[in-house]
């Protein structure tokens, strides 16, 4: 994985904490991981380039889980930090946007 997705994932976490109105700070550790501290749980997000399945590893209070994309990382982080979160499943409208 190149550096850009990691930097942008860090920025996404910063903006997400603000959007969810959740306390905490987001930092890059010396080994390049994204670390969220001062929140309800301690979270560490590592890029996992050697793994063919998961691009990220998310460690929450010591428990490791893989995430297939930054979208999966975001879901895990929100579930850990935002107790009121209930995901909405996207639905595709049946009516056409314009007549066929």
């Amino acid at each position, binding site marked *: 994985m190149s550096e850009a997705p990691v930097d942008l994932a860090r920025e996404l976490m910063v903006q997400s904490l603000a959007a969810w109105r959740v306390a905490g700070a987001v930092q890059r550790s010396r080994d390049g991981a994204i670390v969220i501290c001062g929140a309800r749980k301690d979270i560490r997000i590592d890029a996992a380039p050697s793994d063919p399945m998961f*691009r990220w590893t998310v460690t929450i209070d010591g428990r490791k889980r893989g995430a297939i994309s930054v979208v999966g990382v975001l879901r895990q982080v929100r579930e850990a930090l935002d107790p009121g979160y209930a995901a909405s499943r996207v639905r595709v*409208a*049946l009516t056409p946007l314009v007549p066929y």
Partner: protein
Amino acid sequence: MQADVIPISILTGFLGSGKTTILGHLLRQSGFSRTAVIINEFGEVALDHELVGASEDSFIELKTGCLCCKIRTDLVQTLQDMLQRRDAGKCSPFDRMVIETSGLADPAPILQTLMTDTSIAGRLVLGGVVATVDTVTGASTLQREDISQKQVAIADKIVLTKLDLNGPAEPALLRRLRELNAGAPVLSADRGKIDSQCLFSAGLYDPHAKSLDVNSWLAEEPRSHARHNADIQAYTLVRKEPIGAVTLTLFLETLAEHCGADLLRLKGIVNVAESPDRPAVIHGVQHVFHAPAWLKRWPSDDRSSRIVFITRRVPQRWVEALFEAIDAEVADVSVGR
């Protein structure tokens, strides 16, 4: 194209904001003939039907509850019945429908119902959403009533009413409307009188020209109208570079997943990398999205992607950061990193 696909528009606005007065005048205009009207009134005694002074057989009143929460199934049943009667020649042959919501109704669930119900799919196409705002009490109503803000925020067009009582709209009211929905044109009704053509031409599909008017429908404002501490915000995500289909899909899915009811409305035109000559038009209400509609060509020389967001407590910077993170990851994967 199917010959009998009917545009359906929503007339919304807070209690006493002049919806029924406008509808009463519209029903007397020749340009508004061949329109079926559904009125939803919240209360024990329904009066609006009497006030509009119409008794056409394509005029239905839904009472006993509010459309947005209690009687959505009644709405679908009513729409089905009206379409069946029209097809069977048992009522006036309308070619447009308008729903006047109750003043307390949230228009978003009504839009969702129209988008997702299998029994009316294919027969109806979303027209515009028109919101009335009373210039006498509108400013205080917008300050006090969340539902009033939502009605304005979701609208494609806003109509100022009661100007005869209060004179021109106060700058503070106009400023508030702009904060809530900068893109929507603000029209005025003179004692309820307004041209039906300019009012209900707010949708993407123009039934008269049988064409798509994307620029008018988007009515985008390039600047953000987000305010500090404002719950409802409108802003536009603009991207000069084409957007990959995978990025767009992941982005919309994630918005729906995380924003849900706070994504009041999203509409946009997108330069999809895999389809450079045929832009995609996208539309979502809360977590319900249309499949993209593919235009035959770009409506202007501007080939940038423009996505208009109307949200509640969803910061613009979060939306931008989400898009950038997904886009960078998809780009990374596509080159095998």
